[in-house]
């Protein structure tokens, strides 16, 4: 298990600077999630750690060693791809021990390692099947199994759950979290889904256009987003952002409050009309037009509202956010 240190990394393709200058420490044993919209550079960053892309400038250290010039197989890493990248002509067992066979690891040890991985991932009955005969979730486990037997210092995941349906995704999330606890390994995980980030990560790295917006625990990012980008990226439904008097009278350009920190009140607060309601069973989302602008409000339980209903809304003062003209947090 090892710490990953990225120093002043720059990646430029021709005239396009994908990543201008990035420095990041991934602590030993952590589950670090790189999250951000498409094109923000998170996959490029992961591939640089893996050695599949070379940085234009800067260095990468894994476990204290400088691996910037090393081949992927020499870095002590393993990777699970979005498409799993299993070898269709090999059985599950052969897929998993492919690297071990190449390294001429003796058969006894090979079988032992495969057995252990198969045990952790419940793959024993599938060992002699070919990938075509497996479901999506099973293929993904095989890809993870291939990663585990290498005993790497760092596990890399490139959007591994994107190709699974919603129910399977939730299940795999839990299994990945358990895997992390069991192996106590350093894991670097790329996703565009903030729910995966929030549920899996010890440390989240929010990226935007090749830069790091903020690094922190899920709770930190949720409670104290440093920029408007992070504030609106984390949390669903998105944080309400209001400009105008409400922000200016507090000395800011933008005032932010999450939908779950707004509540309905009988008196006081702001007046609003219901535009649209979404009933999700356990909660209700209200889309309102208020004197301050458009607002989204989240309430527990199932409450019925009609379009055009008048309501009054108040904010939980503890959870107010203020941002300056550049989108940065104030206070």
């Amino acid at each position, binding site marked *: 298990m090892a710490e990953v240190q990225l120093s002043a990394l720059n990646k430029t393709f021709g005239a396009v600077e994908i990543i201008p200058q990035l420095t990041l420490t991934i602590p030993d044993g952590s589950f670090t999630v790189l999250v951000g919209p498409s094109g923000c550079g998170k996959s490029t960053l992961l591939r640089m750690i893996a050695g599949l892309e070379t940085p234009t400038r800067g260095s990468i250290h894994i476990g204290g060693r400088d691996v910037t010039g090393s081949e992927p197989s020499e870095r002590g890493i393993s990777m699970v791809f979005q*498409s799993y990248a299993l070898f269709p002509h090999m059985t599950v067992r052969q897929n998993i021990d492919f690297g071990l066979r*190449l390294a001429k690891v003796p058969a006894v040890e090979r079988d032992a390692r495969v057995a252990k991985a198969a045990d952790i991932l419940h793959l024993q009955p599938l060992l002699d099947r070919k990938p075509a005969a497996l479901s999506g979730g099973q293929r993904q486990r095989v890809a993870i199994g291939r990663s585990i037997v290498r005993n790497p210092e760092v596990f890399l995941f490139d959007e591994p759950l994107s190709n699974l349906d919603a129910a399977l995704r939730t299940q795999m999330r839990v299994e990945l979290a358990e895997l992390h606890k069991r192996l106590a390994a350093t894991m670097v995980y790329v996703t565009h889904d903030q729910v995966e980030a929030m549920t899996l990560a010890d440390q989240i790295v929010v990226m935007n256009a090749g830069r790091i917006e903020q690094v922190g625990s899920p709770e930190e990012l949720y409670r104290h987003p440093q920029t408007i980008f992070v504030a609106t990226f984390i949390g669903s439904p998105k944080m309400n952002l209001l400009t105008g008097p409400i922000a200016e009278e507090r000395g800011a350009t933008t005032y932010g409050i999450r939908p779950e920190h707004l509540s309905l009140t009988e008196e006081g607060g702001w007046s609003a009309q219901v535009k649209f309601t979404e009933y999700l069973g356990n909660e209700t989302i209200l889309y309102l037009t208020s004197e301050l602008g458009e607002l989204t409000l989240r309430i527990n339980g199932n409450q019925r509202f009609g379009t055009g209903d008048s309501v009054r809304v108040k904010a939980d003062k503890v959870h107010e956010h203020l941002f300056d003209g550049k989108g940065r947090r104030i206070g």
Partner: protein
Amino acid sequence: MSASAPSPARRWRLDDRTTAVVLMLPPALLLFTLFVILPLLDAGYYSLFKWNGYGAPSEFVGLDNYAQVLGHGIFWQSVRNSVIVLVVSIVVQMPLALLLALLVYRQTPTNAAFRLVFFLPYILAEIASGLIWSFVFDGNTGVAAGMFAALGMKPFFILADKDWAFFAITVVVVWKYFGFHMMIYIAALQGVPAEMIEAGKIEGAGRWQIVRHILIPQIKPALMVSGFFAVVGSLQLFDVVIPLTNGGPSNSTHTIVTYLYAFGLTRLKVGFGSAVGVILFLAAIVVAVAYQRTLNKEAAR
């Protein structure tokens, strides 16, 4: 058509479908039947007669033509030559094509230029290729002559040598067709997902190991198709042989088709030539069936 009267709209639609079929299908069927199927059936029929092509076939000889063909030493020589081409195609040409495909399949401008150059012989007419190489091999004034002169040796007319002439022909076949096979492999190689190769790299596979364990298994279908074309092509070799040797010297370089042409067509022995054609046809069927069987076996695995 249904017994009850269909509604006007429905009836129109039925007719429209029939119109389309009746209008658009028969031309192909007619052309194909008239110029492909009927001649093939005729070949079988004519092969049972001794006939010079004029009037109608009258001299029924049963399987005598076949006996003559199968008893003719030159025919067996031509079969042997066809097999030689086949073996050379599989043992020399395909590996060469595979090697080059592996060297130039990545999309770069230089690779694109090389791909173009290597494919060039394939688009030239076989007849032109044969004639070009006829010059190259010419002991008097060709490239061969120049090379022998430079080495201080007497000129060697390879195309006039009974033992070596066909070897020269196989060189031309390789020259002409390796680019075609290469392109098939390149298309297959370009279809291998990049992530699969990257996964191999991460597992520690070196260049050669990636080729052996990942690329070649992935392009198996292309290898099969290319092999099929090699076999079929070797059976039908004609155009290159004519300008190079015309079947000589001493009938040592005939292929099955040049044999058919020389001993069947030019001598107006229609029955005899048809028998050769039928034998060729049977060989093609055997190849096709064997190929289909191998395909099915692969698919079941």
